[in-house]
């Protein structure tokens, strides 16, 4: 059985699965249930200065798949709406009762050095392992010049991180917002400010859907709606990209990463780790299915590691980084073609119409005398785009097979047809 222990910002964790700062980590009752379920740590729901914020009623919206599965989720909730003292006393109590679990205190404050420092000191005194700076909330708090209002300005990320570093001597995590143009600017700023680790992503700004009867965006509060933070499975690709950029950029590589965004299963977790994440945070999946989903995250990750012979997380951490490159470094001579397993094919015709209408007219369709339908790839016309393999409903029925052509690795800058020569 693989060893799932990990370390981030110098903090040891019994497994890489933490709950992200959000309702699941809002109070004593939730966090204790989470620890009982097997979560290794929590980032406490973001704490602010008193008086606590007040939330509206009607707070979440869903983006649904055809089967009413929730693909994406959004919220217009603010930070913790309970008094700071109550939160801190509960943190102290859980720290005593669950010594092997991690608690990170998430915080945000006005753009004021004193405010950030005083709050950080109070939270640190409760015994948390570290502090996470919430610089990402894209709704509500940003209208009060907090959250993403700070996280969208690299100078302010750096300054806020530095303030907290100066105030406390426990690890500091800077949590980034994806609502920016280039995540590297934010990551570099956090690093420059002295962050021990970077957490990302916070939620993506969104209007989740429009209620066509009420003619208002969801979630609707008395006839009106506002943009909110998007998360859940649908944001995973965005988060993967941002994690990868930080992990492979010369300026930021090596910084500890607490990866967040759409992690629902062990496979998602393994993907983030392969791109360099030291630990993971989960919010939406827990909200959709309950804390029990951590069981399979743990079990699945360890089975995967066993099957690959990885004994520790570090054995495979970051292995995909070196294979994540710029487009200009790809091999133009690589050639792959779709191959249809006629035995497995159930003759639905989806590959044909997809390729015929929208790709390269490379899947021939023939109907034999008795009605038997045959779909065959026309190798000359197949450009290897993967479309058919993606839409085929039968697993492994369409395989993309690399063509052996004995041509050398040739990038676009080196390519004879590149009009700009080897400059771009």
């Amino acid at each position, binding site marked *: 059985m693989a060893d799932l222990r990990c370390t981030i910002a110098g903090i040891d964790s019994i497994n890489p699965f933490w709950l992200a700062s959000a309702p699941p980590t809002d109070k004593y009752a939730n966090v204790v249930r989470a620890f009982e379920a097997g979560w290794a740590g929590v980032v406490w729901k973001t704490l602010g200065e008193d008086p606590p914020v007040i939330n509206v009623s009607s707070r979440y919206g869903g983006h649904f798949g*055809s*089967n*009413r599965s929730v693909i994406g989720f959004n919220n217009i909730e603010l930070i913790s709406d309970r008094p700071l003292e109550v939160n801190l006393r509960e943190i102290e109590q859980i720290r005593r009762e669950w010594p092997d679990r991690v608690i990170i205190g998430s915080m945000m404050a006005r753009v004021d050095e004193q405010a950030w420092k005083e709050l950080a000191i109070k939270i640190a005194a409760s015994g948390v392992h570290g502090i996470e700076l919430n610089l990402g909330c894209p709704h509500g708090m940003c209208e009060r010049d907090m959250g993403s209002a700070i996280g969208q300005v690299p100078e302010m990320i750096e300054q806020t991180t530095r303030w907290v570093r100066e105030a406390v001597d426990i690890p500091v995590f800077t949590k980034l917002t994806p609502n920016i143009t280039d995540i590297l600017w934010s990551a570099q700023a956090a690093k420059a400010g002295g962050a021990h680790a970077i957490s990302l992503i916070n939620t993506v700004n969104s209007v989740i859907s429009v209620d066509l009867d009420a003619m208002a965006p969801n979630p609707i509060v008395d006839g009106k709606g506002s943009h909110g933070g998007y998360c859940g499975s649908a944001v995973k690709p965005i988060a993967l990209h941002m994690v990868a950029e930080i992990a492979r950029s010369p300026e930021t590589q090596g910084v500890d990463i607490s990866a967040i965004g759409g992690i629902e299963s062990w496979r998602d977790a393994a993907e983030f780790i392969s791109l360099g994440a030291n630990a993971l945070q989960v919010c939406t999946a827990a909200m959709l299915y309950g804390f029990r989903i951590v069981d399979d995250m743990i079990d699945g990750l360890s089975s995967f590691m066993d099957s690959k012979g990885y004994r520790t997380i570090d054995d495979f951490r970051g292995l995909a980084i070196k294979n994540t490159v710029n487009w200009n470094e790809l091999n133009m001579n690589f050639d792959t073609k779709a191959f249809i397993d006629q035995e497995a*094919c*159930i*003759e*639905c*015709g*989806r590959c*044909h*119409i997809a390729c015929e209408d929208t790709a390269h007219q490379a899947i021939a*369709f023939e109907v034999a005398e008795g*009605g038997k*339908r045959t779909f065959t790839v026309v190798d000359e016309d197949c450009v290897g785009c993967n479309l058919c393999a993606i839409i085929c*409903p*039968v697993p492994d029925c369409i395989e993309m097979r690399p063509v052996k052509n004995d041509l050398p690795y040739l990038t676009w800058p080196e390519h004879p047809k590149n009009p700009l020569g080897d400059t771009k």
Partner: protein
Amino acid sequence: MAHHINKTGCAKISAAQFFDDLHRPLDGLMAVKEADHCLYCYDAPCIQACPTSIDIPTFIHQIRTGNMSGAARTILSENIMGGTCARACPTEVLCEQACVHHEGGNKTVEIGLLQRHAIDHLMAAGGSHPFSRAADTGRHIAVVGAGPAGLSFAHRAAMLGHKVSIYEAKSKPGGLNEYGLAAYKMVNDFAAREVEFLLGIGGIEIYYDKALDSSLTLDNLQAQHDAVFIGIGLGGTNGLGLDGEDLGGVMDAIDFIEDIRQTGDLSAIRLGEDIIVIGGGNTAIDAAVQAKKLGAQNVTLAYRRGEEQMGATAFEVDLARQNGVMVRLWSKPMAVQGNAAVTSMTFEHTVLKGGKLTGTGETYDIACDLALKAIGQKLEGDGLDGLTINDGKLKVSETCETSIKGVFAGGDCVRSGEDLTVQAVEDGKQAAIAVDAWLKNN
């Protein structure tokens, strides 16, 4: 088995109240899940397997997107009796048989149940009729018979702008939808509700208790209308050709079913304790299963050949067995015994010898107080003089025209496909399109 209907002792109860749906309708959750199982195939084989060519992937996709009335319109635009077909089609040998999931060895999509879900939704929502009529052509067409073929014809003809008058021998519309389909397929008076919906197109009048016969002839109809469509089904039944067939307690299964469908008081149905149903088709199965559901003690279905030769589908034979019907194969009726009423029947075992059915000489008796004959229907009617009949059915051309110019026909009374509701609906639709074209030149 449930209680015996004759012994319930409760107030009068009709088939519409007594029988439950054979297939439980899908609720919203299951409909969406089932719709999701459909792969939205290109040039889908299920479409080709539907006699009316409903665009199945499209209507299922519409259910998936929540466009329920659009789904219903997609169905009804090819099959105006999509509601009955969804309940009565042997989908296991039609659309669902062709579903590509078959190929993958998986559970096929429940096309019939999804179709029902969409149509029921549209009918429950009410509102205006989903189709409109083209500009009035000034042409007037007579239809004989208000069964699926006649009604489907009338609806399409009305849509194309013609005026339609239907002459129906009985006092209710629907044909076998109303009188013949098993009660557990058509609960809650669905046949009548569907006809009312269909007539919502406008431009169709029905004259009841008006049969094509010596007083209302084809000549009369032709004189008063621009074209005639005949959809009279198969009014006659085949006999056993045995002595004693006229004894009390020996009757056509079709009449037995009609009694069940039409009575306001099921306890008044003549239901024996020991029933024999003779035949191997739909009708035999339906009669046997309904008898069993009504509480008959012993129901034996006797068929002279094997299961493979049965007209009924494997699903239906299973249904009979599950309902406690005793199925006796390779049994040929030889004699009917009794004085005033039947008391037993004699059967001879049969075998196939060189492809020919032959008796073995071995016989056995089954006691019975009711014997139901379901050995096929045949074309019958006084008013068919002058029409060429081929192989027991009206002869029609590619364009559905009979041997008399301007007289068209479809449904069970012609040989187009299987004798099924869905085929009759298709025949009516195609004939209306053909008549519309014909009228442009005549």
